[in-house]
């Protein structure tokens, strides 16, 4: 993997922030976009723009082909059985809400259980809280091990014959831990439950095979994987999607509309009411091409090396706490410096051109589990380098010195 050649393709990286070359370490929040994605979106608007699945004119056909072509690329990326199992959504949040609002409310009743974990992002937590409240189902949590991972033994104890849904993130956006989805799917299925996988932090960074995982539902966002914001997708097993009710009604999703009754299109269209984010889908397709050309295995390898390097470099800093397991983690490091609040860390780093995330990372229950109100997080992607990790480590040492001096 030639990092310099890759970096060349990301226009935004080549600028100075506060007089220093930008070091972008916030890709877990949103990744940067390569030229090919920016161009694909521009080209779509300049040459092909029209509404999809309507009308018979040439631009309409081109837009439809581009949109459906992107669906095929998503299906291939996830190794879905067929493109009809890919529903375009606004992102992971909308995808998970679709499952919680449609599938969960049909399937769950009083006495049933929905099982999640305390490490979930709010978008894979609140939809299930609400679904449990609406159906009378009980929300249960698989506890975390001291290092933030989950154990199969705990999962086997929490998931029971009453469990209808297990919803879990593939990769934690705070701890960086990779969860054993395949094993959890087997436990869920043994108990007659389905597994819903939040793939927001896994899809951009590693090869994902929904059939191999035996995931029933799998959600992800385009903007964390070099694609545009506002586009994501939900994969679902065909028999599950085919029996699910739409939650948004309108154009595009209907078969026949009578005055008092209507019928729905087949999947995936019944879940895509209204004009979709066509340019977003086109951009996502270009992002998938970009990532696959480099190779997700290569990207995975590069990021794991960077994460290990960062873990070691940051561990050397006095007074730092790093959260999550040392091994089995993706390319992010969440930490706190003693006596310096993460906002202050982030402001000092920004003054040196380094962008990191500070706050609760949309994981308030996990912050309480960690017994902190906020943390700082550096997250890496294919365009980051060891030199950038060095700049981060040096800047953190300077931050400590600055605050040590300032508060004497």
């Amino acid at each position, binding site marked *: 993997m030639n990092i310099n050649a890759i970096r060349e393709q990301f226009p935004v990286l080549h600028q100075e922030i506060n007089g220093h070359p930008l070091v972008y370490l916030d890709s877990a929040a949103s990744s940067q976009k390569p030229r090919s994605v920016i161009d694909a979106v521009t080209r779509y608007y300049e040459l092909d723009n029209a509404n999809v699945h309507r009308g018979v004119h040439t631009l309409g056909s081109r837009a439809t082909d581009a949109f459906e072509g992107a669906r095929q690329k998503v299906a291939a990326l996830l190794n879905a059985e067929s493109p009809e199992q890919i529903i375009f959504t606004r992102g992971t949040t909308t995808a998970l809400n679709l499952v919680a609002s449609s599938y969960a409310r049909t399937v769950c009743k009083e006495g049933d259980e929905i099982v999640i974990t305390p490490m979930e992002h709010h978008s894979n937590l609140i939809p299930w809280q609400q679904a449990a409240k609406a159906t009378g189902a009980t929300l249960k949590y698989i506890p975390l091990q001291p290092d933030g991972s989950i154990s199969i033994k705990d999962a086997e104890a929490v998931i029971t014959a009453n469990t209808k849904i297990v919803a879990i993130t593939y990769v934690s956006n705070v701890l960086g831990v990779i969860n054993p989805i395949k094993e959890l799917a087997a436990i869920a299925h043994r108990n007659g439950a389905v597994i819903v996988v939040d793939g927001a932090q896994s899809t951009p960074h590693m090869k994902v095979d929904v059939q191999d995982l035996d995931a029933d539902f799998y959600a992800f966002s385009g903007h964390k994987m070099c694609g545009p914001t506002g586009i994501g997708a939900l994969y679902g097993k065909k028999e599950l999607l085919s029996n699910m009710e739409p939650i948004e009604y309108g154009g595009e999703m209907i078969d026949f509309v009578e005055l008092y009754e209507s019928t729905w299109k087949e999947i995936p269209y019944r879940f895509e009411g209204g004009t979709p984010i066509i340019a977003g889908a086109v951009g996502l397709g270009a992002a998938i091409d970009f990532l696959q050309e480099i190779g997700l295995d290569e990207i995975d390898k590069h990021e794991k090396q960077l994460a290990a390097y960062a873990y070691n470099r940051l561990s050397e800093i006095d007074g730092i706490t790093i959260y999550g397991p040392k091994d089995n983690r993706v390319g992010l490091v969440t930490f706190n410096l003693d006596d310096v609040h993460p906002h*202050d860390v982030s*402001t000092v780093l920004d003054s040196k051109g380094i962008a990191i995330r500070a*706050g609760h990372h949309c994981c308030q229950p996990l*912050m309480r589990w960690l017994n902190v*109100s*906020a943390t700082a997080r550096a997250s890496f992607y294919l365009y980051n380098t060891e030199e950038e990790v060095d700049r981060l480590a040096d800047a953190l040492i300077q931050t400590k010195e600055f605050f040590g001096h*300032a508060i*004497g």
Partner: protein
Amino acid sequence: MQLDDLYRRVIMDHYKNPRNRGSLNEDAVTINLNNPTCGDRIALQLQVVDGKVVDAKYTGEGCSISMSSASMMTEAVKGRTFEEAINMAERFSALMKGEDVEFQENEDIEALSGVNKFPARIKCATLAWNALRKGIEQ
């Protein structure tokens, strides 16, 4: 971007040696406010007698800017009528917009003027003042 504009000595002093950190009696007006985007939170207590704030204390968690701002605000608000307190909160909003305002009640507050150049941190500085406004409305 000058860090020293933001982290002035007087701010760091309030952060390290917070004034009025603690709790008042249960009959004090209590306002819990948090900043949902970042996790900062404050519990502000105001002891009110005849339309006047006679005492103020706070507990909470947050960055140097939010906690030092709370420390300064509680110092300044003691002995103020509601009207004076609201007037001070309004002047603080003006300070955050970069306007040149004075705080004879507590000149330390003027050190927070540098926050204006760090837009992402304005919400840190205003947390305690929003709690004050809310408390007086109650």
